[in-house]
């Protein structure tokens, strides 16, 4: 039975069917406002990440969707029905916990079967579905093992299988990779991504690691102090950050405090064509957008020819520091008092005054 009123649309509605609608969701703990009236839509089948520092409210939001917290105000809707009024055991949502929360007194198979058994799934089905889930995460051989005997990565897979076997409409992942070491993390990221594509379930992933968010997500929702800073695809959020915070949080950037006057922005000795209203403005310029003038990278880094072009902005700067990073160099340069970071493909030590250039369009105007 459809609800009497239509669900009010938000400006984030995707062309694809919207699975979860969050409307002005807010949460207070005592006097502290952890979430401030957030609205957002999650599309069916997408891999969306809630990204933010600790204290940004991302974990709270996840727990509100899972049902372990009650909203102070606002609503959550799923498939035309109110979700936030349901207790967690009645929601078609499952969670992969940060420390996996595997039941120590049950073996792997019983852990995975737990959700099916408590919801009285038909007995014959349980065995087959559990086996499928275990082979999906490549843990078939460990079916009789106890969680305490497994490594972190193995426990994580079991936790994943335990959640997915119930075929939830939405899977919540609470920083599931943060306890793993670096190499295992990269491997699990790749596996998670392909797993999501394979099963087609909507994933809501929470992390503070922006590289992880960029690698995995279809969309990133950046949270800051309980509010939604920006929500966009990884490429868009990286190249078109809306605010200075976004520009600095995701990747590295140079924040230029400039004055715009009649289509031209000035920041110290730098000057470049810029659109938009006159006045003080902030610009984000990524370090890798700055190149050495007259040089072409010899290992495929740049594909622009070094000839002058109308959009090129040239400047000279003194190299103050050079950090070698294997495939790249990170330079700190001083352009007439303005410090800039420049990222170049590895080319050996540099020093003294050098000529640099960047595309005017790479200087993105951002809000405060």
């Amino acid at each position, binding site marked *: 039975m459809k609800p009497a009123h239509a669900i009010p649309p938000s400006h984030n509605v995707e062309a694809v069917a919207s699975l979860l609608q969050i409307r002005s969701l807010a949460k207070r*703990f*005592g006097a*502290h406002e*952890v979430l401030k009236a957030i609205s957002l839509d999650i599309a069916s089948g997408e891999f969306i990440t809630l990204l933010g520092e600790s*204290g940004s*409210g991302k*974990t*709270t939001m996840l*727990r509100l969707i899972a049902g*372990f*917290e*009650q909203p102070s105000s606002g609503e959550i809707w799923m498939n035309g029905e109110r979700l936030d009024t349901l207790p967690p055991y009645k929601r078609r949502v499952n969670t992969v916990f940060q420390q996996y929360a595997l039941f120590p007194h049950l073996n792997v198979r019983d852990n995975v079967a737990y959700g099916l058994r408590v919801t009285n799934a038909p007995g014959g089905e349980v065995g087959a579905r559990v086996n499928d889930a275990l082979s999906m995460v490549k843990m078939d051989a460990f079916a009789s093992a106890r969680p305490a005997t497994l490594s972190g990565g193995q426990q994580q897979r079991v936790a994943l299988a335990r959640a997915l076997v119930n075929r939830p409409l939405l899977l919540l992942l609470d920083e599931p990779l943060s306890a793993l070491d670096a190499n295992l993390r990269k491997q699990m990221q790749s596996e998670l991504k392909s797993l999501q594509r394979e099963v087609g379930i909507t994933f809501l992933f929470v992390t503070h690691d922006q590289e992880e968010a960029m690698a995995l997500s279809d969309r990133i929702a950046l949270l800051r102090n309980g509010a939604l800073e920006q929500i966009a695809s990884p490429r868009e959020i990286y190249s078109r950050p809306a605010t200075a915070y976004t520009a600095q949080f995701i990747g590295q950037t140079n924040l230029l405090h400039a004055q715009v006057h009649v289509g031209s922005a000035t920041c110290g000795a730098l000057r470049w064509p810029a659109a938009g209203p006159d006045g003080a403005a902030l610009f984000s310029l990524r370090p890798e957008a700055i190149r050495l003038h007259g040089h072409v990278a010899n290992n495929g880094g740049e594909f622009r020819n070094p000839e002058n072009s109308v959009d090129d902005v040239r400047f000279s700067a003194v190299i103050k520091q050079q950090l070698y990073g294997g495939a790249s160099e990170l330079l700190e340069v001083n352009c007439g008092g303005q410090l800039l970071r420049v990222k170049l493909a590895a080319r050996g030590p540099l020093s003294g005054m050098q000529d640099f250039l960047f595309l005017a369009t790479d200087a993105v105007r951002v809000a405060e």
Partner: protein
Amino acid sequence: MSTAATHAIRRAPLLAAYSALVFAFIYLPIVVLVVYSFNRDGVGGFPPRHLTLDWYRQLFGDEAIWTSVLNSLIVATYSVALSLTLGLLAALALDRASFPGKPLFRRLVLLPLILPGIITGLSLLMFAVSVGAPLSLFTVFLGHGTALISVATTELFAGLQKMDRAQEEASLDLGATPLQTFLRITLPNLKLSLVAAGLLIFTLSMDEIAVTFFLIGRDNTLPLEIWGRLRRGITPEINAISTLIFAASVILIVIWFHLRIRAQREAI
């Protein structure tokens, strides 16, 4: 700050009501006891009328009771000293040494904790008789000390486990001998455990009946003195002394609890 980690506490009214009933059950006799110690007409009947301090006055004039209190205090103090010393050594031995029969030793040390007092008391009685020792406060002291080693050992062992081993290693590294390390590092770290264990042993010794029953000579401890009077009949004077014991216990346990909290906070 970790507000996101705290999960919502659900109300459970039925369980809360049941818990309140259990609390009432636990406290009811004590409340009755205290109230009737002020009742002029003695124990019994309902409701208590005519509140009076007569029974307390009578209590304060009762020589025998106060002698037994003194006896109990002496025994308790010595028992604390004995149990803490041996318990500390036993805890250190269990924590750091390995020797043949260690599992048996561990079980033996902890046995009096769970064994009914009558068995420990009787076996010590047989021992005293076989060596020809007369029963007296001294035998009582030996009984308490032996029975309560387990309490000291348990508490101190836990304290040792919580201690940062690296501190002792650092002390040795800086040139201190094992003895200096023990006195300057190990003992101070165990300070709170020692005091907590001491308080517990003191209270248990003051209240000990089962073991004392079989080892007592002419001089009574407080519980045995009360016991003797109980056999002769109930007087509210006993209520009065019981109320005083209750008040003393409450004070002790509040102190003990705060020490526990401090120990937990200071543990790294």
